[in-house]
């Protein structure tokens, strides 16, 4: 069990031949993929068992993406003491996709599915290894049972075993009264499906149901009803003539119709109450999430500001850092690709702002994915921002423009300026970290300094062969 606990969750892998089932299974069990695939193929030869198993897993096991999305419907707390901690953290995108099943993926303010265990939160918790890695959030919703975990899976398995046993018994010549057993099983199965439905409705307020789930609910209800009716019909028709059966059916439908007519208003009212409650709960969850965020970010910062009210520099720094954090939380576009050049430049600007206290305003036009030479560009502009903030002593303006052929960054301050010729030879900041680095990576750097301010211009052509120089 202890080894099983470290197993990765059972998800369908993106490294797929058909649906990624074998690869996922192999990753979960820690077996080589090839042998799992061969085993599956061999099992397929054995009366199609492998095929059935494969199809079953295909349907029941989510893909890695789906699983991650379910686990991380809300990102982990993006907050933080933006001020004292790693500034890159607060400026970065709020962890877009935490790895599924890791404790970081669990929203710390509490699991919205009250009563079920959050995946991976308690590694020593109850349940087999299967359970702890393939937690409730990964399973399809109708499989959740609060009191007995996996009760339904066990029940289903027992049922299947029973069927298999009966079939074997028949093969061996034992007389099994199939004529009664099959209708009875149909009735039982139909009832079970319908009751699962009820079980889920009861929880509807807690689960953020999608339309697809609702459609599934209706399908399940219809399937259950059809099974029960068919089972009853077969059972009844065994004992009497068809005419009688039809008559009985008609009578029962009439009675049922009457009952529905009487109960419908009540049911509708019940349904509306439920909907209202559900909407209320969703609102409450959202409110709680916002409150949690504000508590951990804004309120903390306000407390810090009160304590350091005497130090103007600190107050400004705290306020800027908090503003940046809140802005990124409010306006961060989740659809936007992370790790683009403009994000890096903004993160670097935030870092310089935090460490030196002067505001760094970044304006960007266009964007591009990071490459190795862009990394040099980022490092060079970081050095230029540090210089500008240190010697300029005011707001630093940073402008990034990415056009088809070229990436350019301008860093401007309003300090007293300096003469590049007069910078001592041993001072490496400007000469080595900015100009030298840009040259090594095939870019350009120029510095214009007047008594009104200094501007560093960095340029990097977009298409260029990576040269081996990568000492940055």
């Amino acid at each position: 069990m202890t080894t099983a606990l470290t197993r990765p969750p059972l998800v369908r892998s993106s490294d797929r031949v058909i649906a990624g089932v074998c690869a996922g299974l192999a990753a979960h069990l820690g077996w080589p993929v090839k042998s799992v695939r061969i085993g599956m193929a061999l099992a397929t030869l054995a009366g199609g068992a492998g095929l059935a198993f494969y199809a079953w897993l295909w349907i029941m096991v989510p893909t890695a993406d789906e699983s991650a999305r379910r686990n991380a419907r809300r990102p982990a707390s993006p907050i933080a003491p933006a001020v004292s901690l790693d500034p890159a953290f607060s400026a970065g995108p709020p962890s877009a996709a935490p790895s599924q099943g890791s404790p970081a993926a669990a929203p710390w303010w509490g699991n919205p599915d009250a009563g079920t265990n959050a995946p991976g939160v308690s590694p020593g918790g109850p349940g087999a290894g299967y359970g702890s890695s393939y937690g409730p959030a990964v399973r399809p919703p109708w499989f959740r049972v609060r009191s007995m975990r996996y009760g339904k899976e066990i029940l289903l398995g027992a049922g299947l075993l029973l069927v298999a046993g009966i079939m074997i018994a028949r093969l061996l010549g034992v007389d099994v009264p199939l004529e009664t057993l099959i209708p009875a099983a149909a009735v039982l199965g139909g009832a079970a499906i319908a009751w699962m439905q009820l079980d889920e409705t009861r929880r509807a307020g807690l689960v953020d149901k999608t339309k697809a789930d609702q459609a599934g609910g209706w399908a399940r209800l219809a399937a259950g009803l059809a099974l029960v009716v068919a089972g009853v019909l077969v059972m009844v028709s065994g004992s009497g003539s068809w005419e009688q059966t039809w008559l009985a059916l008609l009578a029962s439908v009439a009675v049922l119709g009457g009952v529905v007519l009487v109960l419908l208003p009540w049911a509708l009212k019940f349904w509306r109450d439920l909907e209202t409650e559900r909407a209320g709960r969703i609102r409450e969850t959202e409110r709680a999430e916002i409150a949690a965020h504000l508590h951990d970010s804004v309120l903390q910062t306000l407390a810090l500001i009160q304590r350091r009210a005497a130090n103007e520099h600190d107050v400004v720094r705290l306020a800027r850092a908090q503003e940046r954090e809140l802005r990124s939380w409010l306006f961060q576009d989740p659809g936007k690709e992370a790790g683009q050049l403009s994000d890096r430049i903004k993160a670097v600007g935030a870092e310089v702002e935090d460490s030196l206290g002067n505001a760094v305003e970044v304006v960007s036009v266009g964007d591009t994915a990071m490459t190795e030479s862009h990394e040099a560009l980022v490092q060079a502009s970081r050095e230029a921002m540090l210089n500008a903030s240190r010697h300029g002593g005011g707001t630093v303006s940073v402008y990034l423009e990415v056009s088809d052929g070229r990436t350019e960054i301008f860093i401007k301050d309003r300090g007293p300026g300096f003469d590049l010729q007069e910078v001592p030879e041993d001072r490496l900041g400007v000469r080595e970290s900015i100009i030298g680095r840009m040259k090594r990576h095939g870019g350009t750097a120029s510095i214009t300094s007047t008594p009104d301010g200094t501007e560093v211009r960095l340029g990097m052509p977009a298409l260029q062969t990576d040269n081996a120089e990568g000492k940055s």
Partner: protein
Amino acid sequence: MNNVQGTGPIRPATPVRVVIVDDHAIFRSGLKADLDQSIHVVGEAATVEQAIAVIAQERPEVVLLDVHLPGGLGGGGREVIAGSASLLATTKFLALSVSDAAEDVVSVIRAGARGYVTKTISGAEITDAVFRVAGGDAVFSPRLAGFVLDAFGTAPADIADDELDRLSARELEVMRLIARGYSYKEVAKELFISIKTVETHVSAVLRKLQLSSRHELTKWAAERRLL
């Protein structure tokens, strides 16, 4: 913060009459205290309806307008400008916002505002911006210049293009320098042109931003919830 640094536009002989529209009383009083002596705050408003009423009554030269305002149909600053449309010839609007969202900024500019600055701007800078707007010029912060470059593209206009949909090579140069944090004076020096010419270019860009029917502009702003 927002380098709307001035070239010190000619201070008008008579004080500039200003109405401040913002739903936060603390911000309004702070802004009033920060503004120069030669700016007279003749009215304040906290909602869309109040703002339209006060502006119609006072006929100020400049309205300092928050982009996000309660009341009305939920349109905020945009709705105030629309409601004061008949006064646009005499009353200039300068948008103030804590929001960096392109959608907000572009929509209020397209409604008729003559400029946009963020609320973290200093008292001297905002005074300067008020004088500039009162004098009929446009006020561009580096960020707004960045929005313009992003929306119109950084390639200069061909002659065949509809002139409203593209920026000329010179306008692009001016916008780039403003985005880089240059003041109008510095832009003029860099391009060897007069400050008046810079102001003309900026006003032309503002006009294009307001009038361009370029459908990408709206789409672009909607897609860019922030910058």
